[in-house]
């Protein structure tokens, strides 16, 4: 269910997995109450360090996205849906940060950059509904 991670990427492995889970929650593919694989299964599936898998779950649990039920496993928490909206925004904001950096670096004007963005968005079509 998880995409394979890219060890060579600049993004640490734990971040990659966390992002995948966050994206899943944001996109709605991971709904509250869905069970996630155990730490061991996750590590075995992705061929990663179990400590890393444990860290992912620990951080997400700390952020409120996951909850561990003793003896039963790890699940998407009920509050997750509430965070979905903020998650989506957060993800896009991250991306926009990068774009903004590049825009500034290449000394593109703000208007040009916004025009570019609108063109691409229109080309993409996408969801008309805002919520």
């Amino acid at each position, binding site marked *: 269910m998880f995409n394979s*991670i890219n*060890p*060579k*990427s*600049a993004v*640490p*492995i734990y971040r990659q997995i966390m992002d995948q889970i966050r994206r899943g929650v944001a996109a709605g593919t991971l709904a509250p109450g869905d069970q996630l694989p155990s*730490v*061991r299964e996750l*590590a*075995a599936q992705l*061929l*990663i*360090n*179990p*400590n*890393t898998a444990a860290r992912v779950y620990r951080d997400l649990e700390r952020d409120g996205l996951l909850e561990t039920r003793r003896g039963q496993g790890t699940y998407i928490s009920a509050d997750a849906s509430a965070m979905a909206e903020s998650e989506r925004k957060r993800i896009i904001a991250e991306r926009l940060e990068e774009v903004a950096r590049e825009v500034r*670096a*290449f000394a593109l004007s703000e208007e040009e950059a916004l025009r570019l963005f609108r063109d691409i968005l229109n080309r993409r079509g996408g969801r008309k509904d805002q919520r």
Partner: protein
Amino acid sequence: MSENGCAIVTESLTKRFGRKLALDQVSARVPRGSIYGLMGPNGAGKTTFVRCLLNLVNPTRGSARVLGHDVVRDSVAVRQRVGHVAALQPLWEWMTVRQFAEFMAGCYPRWSQEAVSGILTRVGIDQGDRLQDLSRGQRALAALAVAIGHEPDLLLLDEALTGLDPISRREVLRSVIDVMHAEGRTVLITGQDIAAMERICDYVGFLIKGRLFWESPLDDLKARVKRIRIEHPGAAPPEVPAGATKVERGARETQFTVTDYSPGLAEPLAGPGRRVEVVDLSLEDIFVDLAQPQLTAAGPAAAPAQV
């Protein structure tokens, strides 16, 4: 890093074979519960290091403690709690897998035949086959299965992935990860399969010419070693900060690798007419960038950089 939290602690471990210096004052710390990757080119001393830990060779100078036991004085206790798989290590070829497992079971106080059989059945090795009839990948897996049979607290994999086909390599990694699940188990992997190590190691150490010249968590390594690219068409070439390696200067572009990157490092380099880019490096790139100057330089490796 406190010593108590370490599965392996060496203090200036030195090993000399006649005139050849195989290990040069290696002071390593392998934390408990971690997967530690010891990387280095051929002949760097990785196998010698592992052999010192098992007391197959006696250190010339320095000391080492494994799981709290001195490797020389309590070597039997060490070997009782440590599992060892060495690449292409000759086994008693005439034995069947079952006989080999039974032999090992008789030598250790604890033995879990289910753990052994679990791996063997999962990868489809018939216990009645003789070791000499197994393929290379099956041999490695059989050796690994038997090595974890006595529930070791530390697993030493010396070039265990070398020469394996991709499927066997995955199976070995998978088995290692499965084993790691138990509380507090530590794994030390040595070798040159950097891609595999990148996946599963959380600590790395670089061994060149017998010297441990880098040791840190993998994430730290990746966070601190970056390549800086500065494009300066028309402007004057920037100064390269001290300590940078692998400097490449072009007419309009300068690149170099730094080992102490922090976000504040790039800012002083920016300026009018300059564009600074910070490139993340893969573990392989990092290793090559750091190791090459050491290899080409004459004499022993430089002093290690530690966390």
